[in-house]
């Protein structure tokens, strides 16, 4: 019986691995579970264990070779002699590679990115027991980052079907640490963190603050069947990682700059003190960022400038001719119509907050109650000349007078409104604000 030793796939988008070193040499006896060789991927090095006991023969890769994933690099044979070519390998050990035990289906909850240049978080503790019913805003767990301890809400209603990390575990950001199922589960999973358990949530998956509308992700089947069981060393999370020297981190901290802004510009990492000027510029460009952004959420920010002249004239006309119309209801109607045929719009102006059920026809736009689909901060006529307010439970649009123009800034998370949709919405809205007559047609 012989077992093929293949170059395993260890990373996410990895198609080759570099063989760092054989721990055994040709002809040597190996015992199942012993370290056979070490592989380097783009992220880390890993030790690969022998899938079976026998003799290492037909070694075709040498230390330092870069080898396509899946390629056979040696054989473990019953005898120290190389088997005759053509003899097929026993695929059993590969298929038999231990699969992670099956997990309940539901929405995966990931370790969120909470600080800058943070690539993992330490789970401080769970606030819910396995099987507990949880509500969207319930605090599910606490995470410690380099800066602080943060409480993270569940983000979705349901039942805590699996806890995949334990207090004290240092979990790479993006890794799934819990599953919330729609229905109660009889035997919830509860265990410590291990990297191979669940595939890392992909970059565009909703973060913890996801709305209920987000499609529940079924926890995928474990890694590719060809992948043998490898060591427990983890893959660092690919996203959200900023490499910077302690010195630059200190300088950034003192200046109040966020290294993520520099990372977003694509400036080459790791950053050092010499990149401080670039950081400063990135900071200025990004403008003052909200400190209230939902943890882990990627925020879309879009701005538009329009002339207020036509709007002012239209508002004068509308409030004079349509009984129910006010500045607020008209702008709400514009916003709602930019989003959908019918939408709930909350508009905050000078300390008051009104909510409208907005429709195309201005007369049909009426006050209502309920959760808004979009929130407007109408800051015209204030001294504020620039505003970018964090998205709340809905996308936020700030309207400010900036010189002779109005500046419209929309912020939302991907979960609320995907980037391209956000652009359409703001464009619609800006078009109506610039040329209100359009709204009527």
């Amino acid at each position, binding site marked *: 019986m012989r077992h093929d030793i293949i170059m395993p796939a260890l990373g996410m988008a990895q198609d080759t691995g570099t063989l760092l070193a054989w721990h055994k040499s040709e002809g040597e006896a190996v015992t199942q579970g012993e370290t056979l060789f070490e592989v380097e991927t783009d*992220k*880390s090095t890993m030790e690969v264990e022998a899938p079976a006991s026998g003799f290492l023969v037909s070694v075709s890769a040498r230390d330092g070779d870069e080898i396509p994933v899946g390629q056979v690099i040696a054989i473990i044979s019953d005898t120290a002699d190389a088997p005759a070519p053509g003899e097929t390998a026993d695929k059993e050990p590969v298929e038999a590679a231990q699969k992670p035990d099956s997990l309940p289906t539901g929405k995966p909850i990931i370790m969120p990115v909470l600080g800058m240049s943070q690539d993992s978080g330490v789970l401080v503790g769970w606030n819910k027991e396995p099987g507990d019913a949880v509500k969207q805003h319930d605090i599910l767990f606490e995470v410690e980052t380099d800066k602080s301890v943060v409480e993270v809400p569940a983000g979705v209603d349901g039942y805590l079907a699996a806890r995949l990390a334990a207090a004290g575990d240092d979990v790479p950001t993006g890794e799934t640490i819990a599953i919330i199922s729609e229905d109660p589960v009889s035997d919830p999973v509860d265990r410590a963190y291990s990297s191979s358990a669940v595939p890392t949530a992909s970059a565009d998956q909703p973060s913890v603050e996801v709305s209920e509308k987000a499609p529940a992700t079924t926890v995928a089947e474990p890694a590719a069947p060809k992948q043998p069981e490898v060591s427990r060393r983890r893959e*660092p999370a690919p996203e959200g990682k900023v*490499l910077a*020297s*302690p*010195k*630059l*981190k*200190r300088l950034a901290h003192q200046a109040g700059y966020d290294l993520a802004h520099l990372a977003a510009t694509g400036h080459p*990492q*790791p950053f*050092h*003190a*010499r990149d401080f000027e670039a950081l400063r510029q990135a900071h200025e460009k990004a403008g003052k960022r909200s400190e209230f952004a939902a943890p882990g959420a990627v925020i879309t920010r879009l701005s538009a400038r329009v002339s207020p002249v036509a709007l002012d004239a239209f508002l004068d006309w509308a409030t004079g001719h349509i009984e129910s119309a006010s500045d607020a209801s008209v702008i709400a109607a514009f916003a709602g119509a930019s989003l959908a045929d019918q939408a709930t719009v909350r508009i905050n102006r000078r300390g008051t907050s009104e909510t409208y059920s907005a429709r195309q026809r201005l007369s049909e736009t009426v006050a209502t109650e309920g959760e808004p689909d979009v929130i407007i901060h109408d800051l015209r006529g204030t001294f504020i000349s620039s505003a970018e307010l964090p998205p709340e439970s809905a996308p936020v649009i700030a309207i400010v007078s900036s010189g002779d123009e109005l500046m419209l800034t929309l912020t939302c998370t991907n979960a609320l409104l995907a980037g391209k949709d956000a652009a359409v919405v703001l464009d619609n809205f800006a078009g109506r604000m610039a040329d209100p007559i359009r709204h009527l047609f």
Partner: protein
Amino acid sequence: MRKITLSKAVNEALAEEMRHDETVIILGEDVAEAGTPFKVLSGLVEEFGTERVIDTPISEPGFMGIGVGAAMTGMRPVVDLMFGDFIFLIMDQLCNQAAKTHYMSGGKLNVPLVLRTNMGATRRSAAQHSQSLHAIVAHIPGLKVAMPSSAYEAKGLLKTAIRDDNPVVIFEDKLMYQDSAEVPEEEYSIPFGEACIKREGTDITLIGTSSMVQVCEKAAEMLQAEGISAEVIDPRTIVPLDEKTLVESAKKTGRVIVVDEGHQSFGVTSEIASRINEQAFYHLDAPTTRIGAMDVPIPFSPALEDITVPTPERVFEQAKKLVSGELINAA
């Protein structure tokens, strides 16, 4: 200023101290007429006689123990250990006896003893005559450890060591005995725990011990040609260690390489690097890195031996990487 060899500097320090203080004696193998295999002690027996320059049999634990006992009772022995590698033979006397006597006696007994020995590879002397074992000694509380980097330091530190009331171990680099440096005619001594900034610089700090100071200085020259300004610091004693000077420099340049000829693992480079990381962390613009002797016994073959020790070229390459901001050792 006149220039003398390190060998001569040691000889002068001993002669001066033996003239000052008649309790100073030398004990060791072939220290008298032969003046040791390195001829460092030549002439001393002629001046001070065989009562004070005492040839011993090849009984290292024996004469070390005798040194400890003599030191506790009024003498100031300078014990000569022919090769640093033989430290392993005297570990009990050095580490269990000399190092602990003052403490165990509640401060009532002293061991004013100096152990002079050597270190350094590349003499093609193979694994049992090439080791640099200062870190092992530095690990033991109660022992002070000096590592002269030139004739000047060798003399000044040895004089301080002889006057010190604690057991002090001095490691001289055996390849440097014939190297000359400026040494004043007049008497001087160098206090322990005071690092020496051998060269000022702004971009990177190179900390070297013993002969590695020269390695760092050569690397600094090479770096200068590339427009990189390197600061070179010689701690001179690793116990006590002048942390302040090292940390200040680290804060100034933001980048540090520590170079030492002991094995890299669990060694002097690790200790210094970790102190810098602890105390200058937020000033570091690059990981503090270590260059020590390879973690293998020193091989005989020149083809192998030469790659086990730090070289100016390696320090230079590493420094360039750090200064350029290349990602070092990060996953």
